[in-house]
């Protein structure tokens, strides 16, 4: 009985910690410059799970993409280790999902490497994507 109560309290505490941990980053939104570049089709979701520049790169655009990709890679590395997978495997899987989540008008990279504009139709993804 006592064990049960203590277990319940522990679970509640863990749940609260988890909720706080998830809620804080989820609140974060895209940087306005990133959101604008995305909407304008200057950057797109690459098939490897990283952001890519579509068309002519500029120093500002390159800096923006590098900044996001460095952060993505850090997240991929941590998650890959947790799942006993390689960074490339986790990045590729996340890329599948990120391409699925693109909105009409945004750019994504097709399996052949070309950049495509997302329409209301499902995106052209790698056949290995879940």
């Amino acid at each position, binding site marked *: 009985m006592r064990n049960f109560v203590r277990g319940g309290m522990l679970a509640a505490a863990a749940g609260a910690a988890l909720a706080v941990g998830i809620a804080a*980053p*989820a609140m974060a939104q895209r940087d306005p410059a990133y959101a604008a570049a995305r909407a304008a089709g200057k950057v797109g979701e690459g098939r490897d799970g990283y952001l890519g520049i579509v068309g002519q790169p500029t120093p500002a655009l390159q800096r923006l993409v590098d900044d996001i990709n460095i952060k993505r890679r850090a997240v991929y590395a941590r998650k890959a280790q947790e*799942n006993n*997978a390689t960074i*490339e495997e986790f990045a590729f899987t*996340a890329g*599948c999902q990120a391409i699925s989540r693109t909105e009409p008008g945004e750019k994504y990279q097709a399996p052949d490497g070309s950049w495509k504009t997302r329409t209301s139709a499902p995106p052209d993804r790698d056949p290995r994507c*879940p």
Partner: protein
Amino acid sequence: MTRAKLTGPAGAAKTSAKSGTGGRAVAGGWRRQLGAALVPAIMLGGCINVNAPDKPIVIELNINIRQEVIYRLAEDAADTIEENADIF
């Protein structure tokens, strides 16, 4: 797919080697000479087969591992994107 091709030639080389030395019906000295001539040729062929596909094998493994692993990672990858909405 390519993997099957890569292992294919190796298997074929072995069986041809077996059939070369396994031709016991042929008379003694003749057979020895034939074997001596065939063995270096077969070994040479084997060496070329092993060295050439070094790079394709590495790519092949990545593709094979991914296909199985991707489904295992899918759920966590979706969570990761939602938890890091600012960089996705």
